[in-house]
């Protein structure tokens, strides 16, 4: 079973602030969930490559750029704080 510190490490990685109670609950819940999903360990075997329809990377053509500022207003309208065409946040460094 996972330790509280394991849950805390995961919450830190996921940038989630959670309560002590929730950490304990998750610890218990994960016991059952991980046992259930861990059943996949029983399966061995290689599925091979998908013949048709395999997903592959597609890059957009480096052409037809949109005009600078075309979407700025629409996008900034949703930002919690903005200034002079920038999204405003606390200092990073």
């Amino acid at each position: 079973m996972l330790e509280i510190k394991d849950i805390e490490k995961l919450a830190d990685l996921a940038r989630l602030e959670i309560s002590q109670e929730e950490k304990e609950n998750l610890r218990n819940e994960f016991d059952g969930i991980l046992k259930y999903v861990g059943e996949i360990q029983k399966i061995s075997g290689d599925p091979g490559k998908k013949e048709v329809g395999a997903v592959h990377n597609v890059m957009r053509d480096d052409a037809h750029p949109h005009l600078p500022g075309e979407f700025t207003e629409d996008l900034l309208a949703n930002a919690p704080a903005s200034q002079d065409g920038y999204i405003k946040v606390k200092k990073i460094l």
Partner: protein
Amino acid sequence: MKIDVTTLTIRKAHQALLKKEFSVKDLTDVYLANINAHDKEIHAFLEVFDDIEAQAHAAQKKFDDGTATLLTGIPFAMKDNMLIKGRRVGSASKILEGYVAPYNATVTNKLMDEGAVFIGRTNMDEFAMGSSTENSAYGPTKNPLDITRVPGGSSGGSAAAVAANFVLAAIGSDTGGSIRQPASFCGIVGFKPTYGAVSRYGLMAMGSSLDQIGPLTKTVDDAEIIFNAIKGNDPFDSTTIMDATYERKPLPKKVVIGVPRKFTEMEGVDPAVLKNFNESLKKLQESGCEIRDIEMPNIPYSLAVYYVVMPAEVSSNLARFDGVKYGLRESGEKLIDDYRLTRGKGFGREVRRRIILGTYVLSAGYHDAYYNKAIKVRGLVGNDFKKAFDSGIHVIATPTSPGPAFKIGEKTNDPLQMYLADVFTVTANIADIPAISIPSGFVTVGGKALPLGLQLQGPLGEEDILFEIGRKFEKMV
């Protein structure tokens, strides 16, 4: 004038509008009256749009100038994870409070081009995580057939809206059964296309390798009409397929239906569901289909695969919600605290649970045992389906859900119990194949008739056969 919307279909509505038996406004008025009378109780909608009259007016113009198509003037509900430019949208989450869509989803554009009328955005489990719509940050939706029960999830609002005659059709999304299971709980048709058949551009992503958009409707024909309108390759979604990607076989003269018998009879399946399932198979057999029991050795692991792959993709997709670009921003001491507090407060419990689970299965030391393994087993499940379809099986039948709609609050204490509700539906998302749930009858529980659904799954790209058999089956029920 009285329009009976309970038996209305898209084609019937279209004919009536063409013949001017009623106007688009007459039609939307009936649905709005139903919403006003009953949605306070049902809570299918998070928002009923305030410009319906203007939309109806624009649709009516298309009838007046002869450019109307099948979907013109048809009242639609859109799940709250589909973007409509200029309108509020939020995946039923507090973290997106105030967010206004800056662009249209491709599906939105396609429906708009036809002149469909958007009645409102429907309630859902937060970020599509759930099987009951109880995980909405705005309260659950009730099942119109029994308001003490859930409508299913995560497209519960969309399913309830159609079942309660608030709209003629609804759009939902399906990552592990989120269209089909609520459709079966509410007694309507729910359809998930082949992965890549419908563009996901403008759908808030949950599990990018699993998500598909699809219709919830009263009839199979309506589902097919909507699918044909929304499908298509899209340069904005590079996982969309072309028409020719999958070879489509002609419809068979004698349909062979495969049943993974051991799987459908697993522990935990309600005996009433099995009884109804076997009755459905009998009806199909009497109509000329062959029923053939098949072995699918890896299919019982589909749910385990899903609950590794999906949370992994969720943890990645929801990383963008950080209080910086949009939505809620909670303030802490430093920037990193802004992230932690925003996400901790803005996301609900189930969302937090799945993000952390996904973080775990992707983390160093566990990545190989869980995520990489799940990808392999996913391939093996896909192979099981391919083997069955290559052996002369045309569609695979199971019940849609192991039980009818459960009571509100019944499964909220045990996440794993809730996850098991998806055991029959996740297979189609894992294998990328199309699947449909068709109402198959009722089971009486506590004096109320609760709907059940038959699920058919087809080969990649072969939605046709699902619609064909679906149309035949719905007449037999």
